[in-house]
């Protein structure tokens, strides 16, 4: 795989002005090249992704599918074929359902607020600020924070015994919360962690899209007497539709694969248990634990495939919903 560019006709660059008169006869080869260009160059442009995916993505995918049909230990000389047995046991596995519920709960607690706050934050960043770069970089900083530092800071915040949050709760006369032991409280704490890490990222995505909205549209709406809120709802939001679809689909996928935050949150360092009774173990943590701790690679692969299907389904539903919700301003230009 090399650069895709040379296949397009180089020679035409200098003679661009001739294109205005279609009636004028041109040399046939150039004509043909032009048609080839239109018809085939799109494939060249999307090719790099598929080539790379073919090299590094397809094999892992097929491998995982294949392994999921076996009773396959992580290190296994003689894996035995068991057909769909892994999938059958998965359906009956209560721990799998627990982790699925945990995942959905953390996902709902994090994604919704995150997207709303991100859009509002983007609107703030889209005003004319002094030192705009500094503000943009500022809100993106959480994503760069070292996981070591994050682990300690959130442990200091949500520690059941010595944590700052419980200290404050006690100070104002409320009960302490066992952020580790209580299932819902642990989901809230993890969702806060997720939102803290990802809101700024989503805000910058939305900001980039807001920057593409032509100002004339706002001016036109203003002439029609629309106030700032009205303009935001009826001009800005509809034009953000593709971007919002992107944000919703990617945070659905990311949210259902949530892994780092619950792992960091566990008091037991490096543990994949997701708490003493798996109260905040997510599906990906469970899948990871099955593969690398229990070393049951076949079963872990089955989890991976089932999760893949679930994600596709949920993402599809969210995609449709988002399209419906943001359809109000269909007439683009």
């Amino acid at each position: 795989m090399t650069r895709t560019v040379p296949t397009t006709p180089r020679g035409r660059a200098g003679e661009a002005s001739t294109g205005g008169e279609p009636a004028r006869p041109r040399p046939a080869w150039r004509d043909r090249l032009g048609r080839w260009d239109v018809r085939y160059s799109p494939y060249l442009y999307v090719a790099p992704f598929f080539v790379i995916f073919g090299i590094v993505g397809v094999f892992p995918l097929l491998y995982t599918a294949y392994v999921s049909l076996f009773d396959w230990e992580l290190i296994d000389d003689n894996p035995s074929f068991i057909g769909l047995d892994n999938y059958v046991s998965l359906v009956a596995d209560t721990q799998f359902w627990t982790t699925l519920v945990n995942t959905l709960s953390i996902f709902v607690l994090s994604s919704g607020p995150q997207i709303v706050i991100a859009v509002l934050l983007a609107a703030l960043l889209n005003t004319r600020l002094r030192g705009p770069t500094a503000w943009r970089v500022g809100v993106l900083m959480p994503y760069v924070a070292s996981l070591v530092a994050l682990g300690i800071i959130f442990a200091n915040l949500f520690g059941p015994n010595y944590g700052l949050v419980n200290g404050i709760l006690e100070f104002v006369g409320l009960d302490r919360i066992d952020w580790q032991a209580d299932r819902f409280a642990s989901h809230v704490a993890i969702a806060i962690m997720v939102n803290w890490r990802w809101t700024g990222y989503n805000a910058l995505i939305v900001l980039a899209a807001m920057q593409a909205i032509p100002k004339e549209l706002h001016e036109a709406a203003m002439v029609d007497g629309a106030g700032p809120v009205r303009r935001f709802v009826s001009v800005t939001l509809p034009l953000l539709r593709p971007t919002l679809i992107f944000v919703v689909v990617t945070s659905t996928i990311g949210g259902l694969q949530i892994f780092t935050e619950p792992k960091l949150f566990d008091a037991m360092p490096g543990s994949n248990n997701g708490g003493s009774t798996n109260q905040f173990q997510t599906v990906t943590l469970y899948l990871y634990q099955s593969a690398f701790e229990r070393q049951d690679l076949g079963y872990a692969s089955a989890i991976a495939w089932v999760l893949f299907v679930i994600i596709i389904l949920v993402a599809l539903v969210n995609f449709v919903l988002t399209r419906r919700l943001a359809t109000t301003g269909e007439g683009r230009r």
Partner: protein
Amino acid sequence: MTVFALPLRRRGSAGGGLGRARFWVYGLLTAFVLGSVFPFYWSFLVASRDSSILTEAVPPLVPGGNFFANAQRVFDTVEFWRALGNSVVVAGTVTVSTVLFSTLAGFAFAKLRFRGRNLLFVLVIATLAVPTQLGIIPLYMAMAEFGWANELQAVIVPNLVTAIGVFWMRQYTVEAVPYELIEAARVDGCSMIRVFWHVCLPAVRPAAAFLGMFTFMTSWNDFLWPLVALNAENPTVQVALEKLQSGYYVDYSLVLAGTTLATVPILIVFIVLGRQIVAGIMQGAVKG
């Protein structure tokens, strides 16, 4: 032209969605940024003092004087500069390539018609949904088969272009690049690649800049795959810094001095690319 354009823009934005920021806007943003930046400041605090402040609920808020001593210990313990060089090569290559290929593919998916377009695009998104946790074993097998294990290409090639990048650039291009501009350029006799280069690329600059920031930082912070795929002679920064955590307890002032140092290059990239997220599109459009 410029004389007119400036006041025009200002008038337009003053009343539009891009009003001049008021005090409460600064207030809210300041709160956000303080919350965002706190862990960095805190890391720097620990790095400039010693680990004992970790267990205090409210740490002292003024840096101590140990930062340079701790930084020196980092340089003495790990091959920091070499790892930094590797990380720059890896993250730099991955960023340039991802931005270029994603923008190109995004352009094709958003604005060009070709057979199988929708199917291929759905395929791109579907690859996003594959859980990556298990991929590490077969990926390592593939890399070993190619003879890339322990070579930098083992961490570069898998990330040369990402599904999320293609998806993002496609979504952005749909809105940001008007068909009229493309048609105009085609009528002018531009080849596809020139349309891409001269029409599409300038219009999607904010999105490409964001993708660049995001890609650079993801690549820079990647840990487990580089740890597996590269041998310790040739580490990236994160792999090298991990060695600071040896022993039965962790010397956090040392570890966080390391992470603070490793954040500096990201900040530079952010500041350079962060400027690019601006409304530069319409100028290009008017010229067309």
